[in-house]
């Protein structure tokens, strides 16, 4: 049997070599997946599995590229958007992304969704030198141009949100005593670090930073000890369930601090209604996208454009789902990168141009928010705007806040 084995391997080897030797490039400045008429772009998303409610982001992206192709594509090239289901399972993400890179030969992978899933392909993408652009997660670690020069975030990360809260506190309650409620994991600690760094040498203002575990039944005791510690500023970074409990408990024990609620927990339906809308009155939070359910955008050109797109290309999509705003916004950012690349569509140049976005505006970002990147800054969106809950809905107020760390 050994004999046969060796012979069969020897027979097969020349064939494999011959396959490998055929050059795939069509022209000098084209990377993999690019021709004169087409750019192949890969994506993974959770069409099935525990996070499948986010699957609509990838669907809205596919719809967006259909519209773009109908309008002629980018610099005359159509986008061939290849999107696979990873079911929010990291091993499946690895498999699907390897398929995209090694079999479909995509130029880049855009907005793969999820922190664990992106973590699983992080090293691979950087080893293979394939752009992993605008990942759909808010973890801060994606902004690491030195260690991971092929990966870039997109949305304001949790730390930069924390910086913004700190800036708001310093402006409005410079002598306040701050209490922070955070989830005891990377995501929660990201927020805490952001607030602490943002306060800088005033970090002593934080009198209590109380963690909770996702397995905790309630956060009542944390809220009570915050009041006991004499805090008059409350940074509430809980996920909707715990954010709601905290709001309700604070009202119950008649604790009325300046209440800052993170964007993770600011959904009216998922957090504020369960907490009681009247209890949530006066809470401030932050936004960067135009909420499609907010009537103030009814006549906004960006919103109208988005509605027209949804009606024509994604009629099945839910127009109250923010995911359907996020998807096309990812696409518009990527299209800008590709436009800037011109005919130099190599992976290297894509990363170079992705790190070369200046004052770029996306229609469904809040007015005034601009996307800026540089070779040392891989966090495209840093600005947010504060909003105050009036008992019915969020009212934006004040200037845009830049969430970047004070130098």
């Amino acid at each position: 049997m050994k004999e046969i084995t060796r012979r069969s391997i020897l027979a097969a080897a020349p064939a494999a070599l011959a396959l490998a030797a055929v050059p795939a490039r069509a022209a000098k400045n084209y990377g993999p997946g690019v021709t004169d008429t087409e750019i192949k772009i890969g994506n993974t998303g959770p069409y099935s599995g525990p996070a499948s409610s986010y699957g609509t982001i990838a669907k809205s992206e596919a719809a967006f590229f259909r519209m773009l192709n109908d309008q002629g594509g980018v610099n005359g090239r159509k986008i061939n958007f290849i999107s696979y289901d990873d079911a929010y399972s990291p091993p499946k993400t690895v498999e699907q992304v390897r398929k995209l890179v090694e079999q479909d030969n995509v130029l880049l992978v855009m907005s793969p969704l999820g922190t664990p899933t992106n973590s699983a392909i992080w090293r691979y993408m950087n080893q293979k030198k394939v752009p992993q652009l605008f990942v759909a997660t808010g973890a801060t670690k994606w902004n690491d141009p030195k260690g991971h020069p092929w990966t870039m975030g997109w949305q304001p990360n949790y730390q930069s949100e924390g910086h913004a809260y700190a800036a708001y506190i310093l402006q409005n309650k410079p002598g306040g005593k701050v209490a922070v409620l955070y989830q005891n994991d990377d995501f929660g600690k990201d927020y805490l670090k952001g607030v602490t760094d943002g306060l800088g040498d005033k970090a002593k203002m934080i009198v209590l930073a109380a963690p909770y575990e996702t397995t905790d039944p309630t956060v009542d005791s944390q809220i009570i000890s915050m009041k006991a510690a004499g805090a008059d500023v409350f940074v509430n970074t809980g996920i909707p369930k715990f954010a709601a409990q905290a709001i309700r408990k604070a009202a119950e024990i008649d604790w009325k601090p300046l209440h800052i609620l993170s964007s993770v927990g600011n959904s009216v339906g998922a957090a504020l209604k369960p907490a009681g809308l009247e209890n949530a009155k006066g809470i401030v939070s932050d936004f960067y996208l135009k909420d499609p359910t907010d009537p103030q955008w009814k006549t906004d050109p960006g919103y109208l454009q988005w509605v027209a797109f949804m009606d024509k290309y994604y009629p099945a999509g839910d127009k109250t789902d923010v995911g359907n705003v996020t998807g096309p916004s990812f696409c518009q950012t990527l299209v800008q990168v590709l436009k800037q690349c011109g005919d130099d569509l190599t992976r290297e140049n894509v990363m170079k141009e992705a790190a070369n976005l200046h004052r770029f505006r996306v229609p469904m970002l809040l007015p005034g928010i601009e996307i800026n990147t540089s070779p040392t800054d891989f966090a495209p969106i840093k600005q947010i705007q504060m909003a105050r809950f009036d008992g019915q809905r969020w009212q934006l107020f004040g200037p845009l806040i830049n969430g970047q760390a004070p130098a």
Partner: protein
Amino acid sequence: MSAPEPNALALERPAAVPAAPPVALAGQRWHGARNLTIGAVVLAALAAPLLVQNFVVFQLTLVMVYGLAILGLNLLTGFNGQFSLGHSAFYGIGAYTAAILMNQDVGYFWTLPCAGAVCFVVGFLFGFPALRLQGIYLALATFALATAMPQILKFQPLEPLTGGVQGIALLKPDPPPGVPLNPDQWLYYFTLAVLLLMLAGAASLVRSRTGRAIMAIRDDPIAAAAMGINTALYKTLTFGVSALYTGIAGALGAIVIQFVGPDSFPFLLSVSFLVGLVVGGVGSIPGSLVGGVFVLFIPNLAERVSTGLSGAIYGVILLVVIFVMPAGAAGFARLIAARLPFARKSVAIAATGRE
């Protein structure tokens, strides 16, 4: 205890547990055909990575990994009649053992026996409460294990070891110096070697006295006990061995995927193993590999048909497979073999005995 006639065993066995392959069946031609098939499959497996793209090599490696995990479940469910919805936990423990050791600069090679040993102990210990539980109750108890695992992996005090929610990223092992293979091909052959070893181990276990005792417990625990078999010992041991197999598969999976995270081992993974087990053939060793193929490729196939309806299409495919091959791929293969002229005589009894 004397070896039961396989066909007699098949006749008496409850319908829910399909027949084991008629390994002990006489008929030299049948035996010859069988060996020829095994040889051909092994040859094809040896040649495959030299003929296809790296990505496909990677997929085939994963098929073997899942096949091995399903084989572990098969030893427990197919041969010993104990249910488990908790094998994602053993797979995860194996994967994390390998990842943690590799992080401490232990050679990937040595992580496999360690993962196997850890899982054997955990599985063996879990086998004790399992002794008191049967059927759906055991399924529930193991289900608890599967749902607990991701949260245990995220548990704060363990974070220095497990990396918490971040998980652990691993480096892809290079082939030993002088071996003219790329890392994907090397991992494929490495996995193949481990798999063949484990397959041979499982086959000889099943054919041994111990194996017959394990199957006797499945077929009739009371009769088995009456024959002097220590059912408690064999059941817990089977649990341990089953966990060992799945744990080694998990370790291989970690090395191949180069990443472990709590979300990599959800309860759904256990269900995938169960699906692979049933599709491949309950109580069939080669069937486990068919199960691995199904687990890896059918979701992809369903997705190719329609991205939006992939779940529904997967369901339809599963239904069709169960209707066409009620005894799994292994049973189907026996049915086909029974119709081949040269094997008809020897297999016909077993095939009809099952109906």
